[in-house]
């Protein structure tokens, strides 16, 4: 892999800035049948909770224009199940592993974070304070700056690996959230999680999702993600892994122009399971066309040029 794609972030030495987003790639097993996962910059694995969780009833997904609502509900084998049954396979690949840490209480987050961070094959944690699909925990920590900061502090205390906090767009000021978790010691940010939404089946008059509400992802939310990354990148000094509706190579560049240092791909994996591999292959050629030497040469240029004009 060419050095022009290399990105160094806290705990993460990425051969390229592309990684599948948590919840959209399972634990890699299915996609490993399609291509070599060592090609990826990193893998954000599916969220872990303290105990195994079954998740929500079905239907769990509903399409909505160029977007998709999901309410999976953090189904996962639990932190111990992941470390025992999923990590040995993931460790066979030459790529960084980012563990997504979820929970219902601060104590559960601490337990999961401590266990995950002690595993030598896990390079960084992604603190999931923004899942809209579970009744307790998750998003309540992600919508109150003081709760988010307190949880970040607690997780930072027990974690031996860098902690990236995943921000929810379902807030009045995402900049305020970002500043709060940065002050609490976050090593980086990942953003954005899904936007809370609902769809109704007009034949029954009832919500399509069994959980009634779900998280909207896909191309529909990309402009929201770009705007939020653009605002947050100017307000904090920790790096951002951008995500939200990335489908093609120019979306990756948009996120980096907006201020992201790396880019995660979510829903697009469901549409085209080869998408991450294709984006990595397409990046150098597109950079040539646009006269970009190193991928991070354009980071934040969207607001820097505004500053120059002012």
């Amino acid at each position, binding site marked *: 892999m060419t050095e022009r794609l290399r990105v160094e972030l806290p705990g993460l030495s990425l051969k390229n800035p592309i990684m599948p987003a948590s919840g959209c790639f399972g634990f890699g097993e299915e996609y490993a049948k399609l291509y070599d996962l060592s090609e990826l910059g990193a893998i954000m694995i599916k969220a872990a909770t303290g105990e195994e969780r*079954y*998740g929500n009833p079905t239907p769990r997904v509903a399409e909505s224009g160029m977007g998709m609502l999901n309410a999976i509900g953090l189904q996962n084998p639990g932190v111990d199940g992941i470390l025992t049954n999923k990590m040995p396979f993931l460790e066979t690949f030459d790529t960084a592993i980012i563990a997504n840490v979820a929970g219902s209480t601060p104590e559960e987050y601490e337990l999961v974070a401590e266990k995950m961070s002690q595993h030598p094959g896990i390079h960084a944690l992604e603190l999931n304070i923004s899942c809209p699909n579970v009744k307790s925990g998750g998003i309540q920590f992600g919508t109150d700056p003081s709760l988010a900061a307190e949880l970040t502090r607690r997780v930072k205390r027990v974690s031996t690996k860098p902690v990236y906090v995943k921000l929810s767009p379902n807030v009045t000021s995402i900049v305020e959230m970002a500043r709060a978790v940065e002050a609490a010691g976050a090593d980086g940010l990942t953003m954005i999680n899904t936007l809370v939404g609902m769809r109704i089946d007009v034949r029954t008059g009832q919500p399509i999702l069994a959980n009634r509400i779900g998280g909207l992802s896909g191309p529909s939310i990309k402009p929201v993600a770009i705007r939020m990354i653009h605002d947050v990148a100017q307000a904090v000094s920790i790096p951002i892994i951008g995500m939200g509706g990335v489908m093609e190579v120019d979306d990756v560049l948009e996120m980096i122009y907006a201020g992201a240092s790396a880019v995660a791909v979510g829903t697009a994996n469901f549409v085209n399971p080869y998408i991450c591999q294709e984006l990595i292959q397409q990046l150098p050629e597109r950079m040539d066309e646009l006269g970009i030497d190193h991928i991070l040469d354009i980071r934040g240029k969207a607001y820097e040029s505004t500053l120059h004009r002012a």
Partner: protein
Amino acid sequence: MKQLLTVVSRRTVAQGATELVCRLEQPQDIAPGRFMHLRVGPLLRRPISIARVDRDLITFLFKEIGQGTAELASLRPDDTIDALGPLGNGFPIAAIHPTQRVVLVGGGIGVPPLYETMRQLVARGVTCEAILGFDTATSVFYEAEFQALGKTTVTTVDGTHGTKGFVTAALRPESYDVLLACGPEPMLKSLQQQPIEHKYLSIENRMGCGIGACFACVCQTPTGGYVKTCSDGPVFRAEEVVL
């Protein structure tokens, strides 16, 4: 796994039901009951069952339900479809012995995958009987095609064609060793209770990825666990799933 299908022909076979014959880019034998994940509609793929495979030709038969299937029904010859598949696990036809008495039970748009299943079973020397349930006479399709393969009974809910009632009105459980079924959930639920030794059900679920990664299409198991419809199924032993 990923391939481009080219539409060869399209026809309406019953009210709201379209048959689409496409050319496979990668000709292959496909076990009956598997599905193709087609890129139609605004964003997500649509899992569509396979009604027939002949070397390089694949036939889909589907009902227009929403945006994706409406788009699929509007395709013309030479149009192409971005397809992922075949995916999933089909009916275990290799495990069925020619001495076993087999009944295939289909309900509405669950009928198509049973056609390829019956074709492959008959080709293996297994004698099969089919019971096909529809709402009304105008929604019936493939009756002659099934009859060419073996004894076929059609039921309609309103009695406008064949036996009046649901498929269970024509089912004599004591006459069969193996039941293979696909159709609406209430039908599969009632078939789960039938005193037939081996029962296999093909279930339907809203899917995301289609390959087992997203956990959208899980189905509960009697022991409190789960299976994924797309990658563990869509065909399950009747005892394996809670419907």
